[in-house]
């Protein structure tokens, strides 16, 4: 069962979420501050970080950036306000998904599962490593390299790239991507997709402003290529 690190300053929320997730079999550790949470990372080695954005001292966005500096740990933001600004800033900082508080444990767990779920194995007869231009995508090893240099991608970024590149030149709407990559079964927030595409472009495109790999089709969505 996944190990979840929860950074949340409010004791009742921390206890409630810990209790709920533990009941569902997760191993949960709670931290009240960003600093304490970062200190726990090395020792606890979580599979996923549940991160409150409003924290005393070091705030959630700063924690998120710090984690992203050297780790692809999946991050789900907990936002108490659900305000547009928080969500956008959190997604830009590298969070993979977000949950608006208050949320039921089943919702939290479903998001955790979705973020942690590995992309489906490539079909038979498909080579393990595909080459698209300078990009090398290893579907089994779940690794991406550009011009022979490995690119560190957050889970959502990797899943988005794998999904798009599995069907080059096919256009996916934001809603379709939300369903396949984030597993949002209802009408999710298209900004998740847009923010993830922006982050992915910054990492794999030569010029992020004029993308080659992840192309926008105005009014329809995104597609991979044509190169």
């Amino acid at each position: 069962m996944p190990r979840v690190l929860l950074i949340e300053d409010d004791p009742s929320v921390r206890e409630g979420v810990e209790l709920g997730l533990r009941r569902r079999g997760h191993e949960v550790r709670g931290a009240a501050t960003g600093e304490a949470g970062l200190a726990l990372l090395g020792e606890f080695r979580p599979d996923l970080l549940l991160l409150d954005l409003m924290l005393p001292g070091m705030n959630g966005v700063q924690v998120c950036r710090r984690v992203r500096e050297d780790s692809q740990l999946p991050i789900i933001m907990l936002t108490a306000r659900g305000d547009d600004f928080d969500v956008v800033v959190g997604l830009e900082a590298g969070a993979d998904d977000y949950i608006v508080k208050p949320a039921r444990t089943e919702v939290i767990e479903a998001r955790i599962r979705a973020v942690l779920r590995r992309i489906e194995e490539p079909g038979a007869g498909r080579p393990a490593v595909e080459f698209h231009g300078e990009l090398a995508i290893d579907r089994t090893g779940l690794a991406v390299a550009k011009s022979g240099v490995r690119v560190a991608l957050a889970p959502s970024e990797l899943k988005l790239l794998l999904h798009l590149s599995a069907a080059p030149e096919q256009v996916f709407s934001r809603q379709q991507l939300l369903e396949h990559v984030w597993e949002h079964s209802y009408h999710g927030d298209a900004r998740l997709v847009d923010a993830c595409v922006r982050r992915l472009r910054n990492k794999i495109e030569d010029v992020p402003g004029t993308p080659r790999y992840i192309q926008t089709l105005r009014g329809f969505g995104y597609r991979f290529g044509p190169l």
Partner: protein
Amino acid sequence: MSPRRRRAAEAAPLTRPGADRGFGGLRRRVRSARSGLRTRLVVAFLLVAALSCGTTAALTYRAARNAILEQTQDTAVSHFRDQIQGLDLQLPVDPNSFQLRLQQIARQGKPRPWRVYAEYGSMRLSSSTSPTSSVITSELRRAARGAPRGSFQRVVGGGHSYLTVAVPAVFAPAPGAEARPTGLVLYAVMELDAEDANIRAMVVAARDGALPALAVALIPALLAARSVLRPVRDLRRAAHHVGEGRLDTRIQVKGGDELADLARTFNASAAALEHSVAELRAAEARARQFASDVSHELRTPLAGMLAVTEVLDEDAAHLDPDTAAAVRLISAETGKLAVLVEDLMEISRFDARAAGLHTDEVDVAETIRRTLLSRHWTDPAQVVTELPTGIRARLDPRRFDVVVANLVGNALRHGRPPVTVRLTTEFRAADLSSWLVTEVADRGPGIAPDVLPHVFDRFYKADRARTRSAGSGLGLAITLENVRLHGGTVRAANGPSGGAVFTVEIPLTGGEDTA
């Protein structure tokens, strides 16, 4: 199930055409009043100027004319009298020598030669060819007989004016005795043409002076009208601004006249109005901020509670019945409270105008199907759909989902199934616009007419006795705000065959571009 809480309101267009008409009318009235005022002021000023010019000219003319005429007639009368006194007459007179004498007197006339006539009994003699003159009136003849010192009269005849003087000849009086008339009366007739010409010249001079003076008076008249009208115009403009909502409008006050007083009063009133409006707005903002803060504050404890409701639900089975019931109640109400707080937060965002539109081009039928699917409203006995394929629109999918879900949820709660969701497009020839029309109809009893205008009000309860329903009481209010954000309208009505019909109309060619 009776419809205990329905909220809706005609999403009436917010602009009232009447308001504009009112302002236009006011403007027209003010303009005509202003030009009327200006005309009246200028005319009054010119009338005063004309009156004073005219009076002065008339008085000067009269005085000058009298002076000219009096001087002439005094000279003429006294000179004629002197002539007559110097006339050494022997009665009865000899007509021939007397006529010569008369001609002599006529030549010596002052200030100009005159014609001299003499009347004695039936004898008529004159210095000219005609023995009598038509301008000597019987009135003068009568006066001459009664005034031994002589009398005169001004007569107008044949386009000329004449001075006629009559002096009776008297016997040389003995000292201390009264002079006796001899019965001989001498008349002098002098044309007053030179004097008339002088007087006419005076009239011309007065006229030529007064008319330019009046024309010149027009300039100060206009200036005066302007100085009076400028404050009036400022006041009108300021009042118009205040009417438009610019409450910080003030007038620059100059001087201490009545208009300045009026301007000061206006400024004071505007300041008072601005102050009260600011207070009202601040109070409203505080109330909204309070609602927003309360919902924020409620969220954190709710987040903890909601995370453990599952634990309560699962373990309730193992508890004794009373505790189990209590635990289930807490769990269920926590869920409702969370929905309520969520809806309050959403409304607060609309109030703070912080709600944004994140549009995407979507297949509308597909979007509605997903909304129904995710709420498990898939049973045809519950929800019937008429969703033509191929309608694409630029919408905020999350907000449109809320709109459809709230309307269908409301119809299922308060109406009777099956609920029909119908999607159409409409082209309006009037302004060449295309609209996306979504209709949600139920088979229930419909909405009472007195409730209809209030169905979109927040927490509106059709029946005060029933206090709570399954919804938060904000669902339709949120629907209304979401539709407005899309530039559309939503209205509630009763269908022709009974049942409530909610119609959402969203422009197909509007909305903010984010892709």
